[in-house]
């Protein structure tokens, strides 16, 4: 009996198409009029959005202050490097750990909430972190942030890989993204993921069948903020700096839009699609008009009104035309 959607990553054509496109992007990106740094930025946002979707898409928890954890990762990476001389691996790990610690602190306060209260609290906490980043001069560098963050070489024992070029950092980020994808994919089909999805659909019933709803919500937040921290560290490397804007409400909003536009609510891959779409739209529209965010915002509203399942949802309904019983992944 077929129990639920096929959960083997490598049997899906989409996986291979995605891998090929991402793996070859530096080769053709210039010929389509774009630039390598853009690919790197997309990759980082993909990671951030995918981790974020564990919360929004899988657990149904609306965190609207998630930019804070991207920023905390960026600052932590910078500080570990600049003040403590940490190498690449330690600084990356430290960034993820710091963001998830901050995440645990926030989650401890909000995991008994849901819906609008949950959302409001995440915004409030996000603003607190942003405020701290501006005011705590001696550590964060205030409005200027941390400058001159280096891109240390990746030491694999047998050989070293310089990450100075955008393309090298792109492939490094790609490798980490693949690891994050594998981890989150397994997670979504694990008992933990199933229970999280149950909590999303019906928190009350999940408690009545004996699950520790609070703890699942807590852990989802912590895992999601760890991924955000890792993405933030890569962002600090990409930008060679960390500054308050990274954790602004803007970025918190962008990641929500990415996930929704991409179709994170109906598809594991939605956030990746959405991140690419968002950053490309920003760049392409931004080249024509200063007011790109207005047009983007209108497109976003149209999407939410007419096709709330996002791009991935369009793709799914196109694929399952005439097969209404088709279940979604």
């Amino acid at each position, binding site marked *: 009996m077929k*129990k639920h959607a096929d959960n083997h990553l490598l049997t899906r054509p989409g996986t291979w198409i995605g891998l090929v496109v991402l793996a070859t992007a530096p080769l053709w990106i210039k010929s389509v009029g774009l630039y390598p740094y853009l690919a790197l930025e997309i990759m980082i946002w993909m990671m951030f959005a995918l981790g974020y979707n564990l919360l929004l898409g899988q657990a149904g928890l609306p965190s609207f202050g998630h930019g804070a954890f991207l920023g905390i990762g960026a600052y932590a990476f910078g500080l570990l490097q600049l003040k403590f001389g940490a190498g690449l691996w330690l600084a990356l790990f430290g960034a993820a750990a710091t963001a998830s610690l901050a995440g645990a602190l926030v989650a401890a306060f909000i995991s008994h909430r849901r819906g609008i209260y949950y959302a409001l609290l995440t915004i409030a906490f996000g603003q607190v972190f942003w405020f701290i980043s501006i005011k705590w001069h001696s550590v964060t560098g205030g409005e200027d942030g941390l400058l001159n963050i280096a891109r240390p070489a990746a030491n694999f024992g047998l050989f070293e890989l310089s990450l100075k070029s955008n393309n090298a950092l792109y492939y490094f980020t790609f490798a980490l993204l693949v690891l994050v994808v594998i981890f989150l994919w397994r997670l979504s089909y*694990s008992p933990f993921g*199933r229970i999280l999805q*149950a909590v999303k*659909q019906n928190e009350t019933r999940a408690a*009545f069948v*004996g699950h520790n709803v609070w703890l699942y919500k807590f852990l989802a937040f912590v895992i999601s903020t760890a991924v955000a921290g890792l993405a933030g560290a890569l962002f600090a490397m990409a930008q060679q700096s960390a500054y308050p804007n990274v954790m602004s409400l803007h970025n918190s909003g962008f990641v929500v839009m990415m996930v929704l536009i991409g179709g994170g609510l109906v598809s594991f891959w939605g956030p990746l699609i959405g991140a690419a779409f968002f950053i490309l739209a920003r760049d392409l529209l931004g080249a024509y008009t200063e007011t790109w965010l207005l047009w983007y915002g209108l497109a976003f509203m149209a999407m939410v009104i007419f096709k709330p399942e996002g791009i991935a949802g369009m793709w799914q309904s196109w694929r399952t035309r005439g097969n209404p019983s088709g*279940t979604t992944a």
Partner: protein
Amino acid sequence: MTALFSAHQLAKRFGDRLVLQDVSFDVEEGQVHGIMGPNGAGKTTCFNVLTGRYQPDGGTVMLRGNDITGGSPRAIARHGIARSFQLMNLFDDFTALENVAVATRSLRAHGFGFWRDAMSAGDAYERADAILLRVGLQDKASLRAGSLSYGDRRALEIAVALAGEPVLLFLDEPTAGLGAEGIARVADLVTELKRHLTMVIIEHDMRFLFRLADRISVVHWGQVIARGTPAELRENVWVQRSNLRQLTC
């Protein structure tokens, strides 16, 4: 012999309204205890207090000699009490099978396995298959719960409660909204479950309850106004006078 389960002098108020007062009943192992009474009598509230949704304002609840008064829904579930809901309370986007599997003890025990596949987590899916067979949903296993018919959803509601392998099962109006055929189906299921399971059933369908229950408590205005075996209750003056059919509208 002490009862498997006993509720003693339960009280619950909402604001200044006393919705339950001095409600006591015992359930012996292997018995079906029926609860009937008019709409708004406090039957569902009684379940809610017993299963941790609301804190009682007084009284004690014992299961197998343990005091479980005021425990959280999760704690009560882990003590082995499962319940179904009067208004359906499923995981609508999951398939029928996933609804049951996610409620099994096996899946719960592996709940913090981040890396393993849920389908290989203990025997969760095998058990879920067996439970769906038991409630007659084996052919609907891979359909979304939200797309099932009303009768099938009622059956799934019970299946989810069964998934936790309870020692005591509370069913809140399992036949609500069903036609004769649906009621017969639930009656068959309860008859079958009765062989291994102790149950407390809120039910407004008199024939259903009088046929299946070993003892019945009649609740009115938050109080137990009569209790006994179905045979005793038929003789009960109060029950006769208030015209059972009307009483249980």
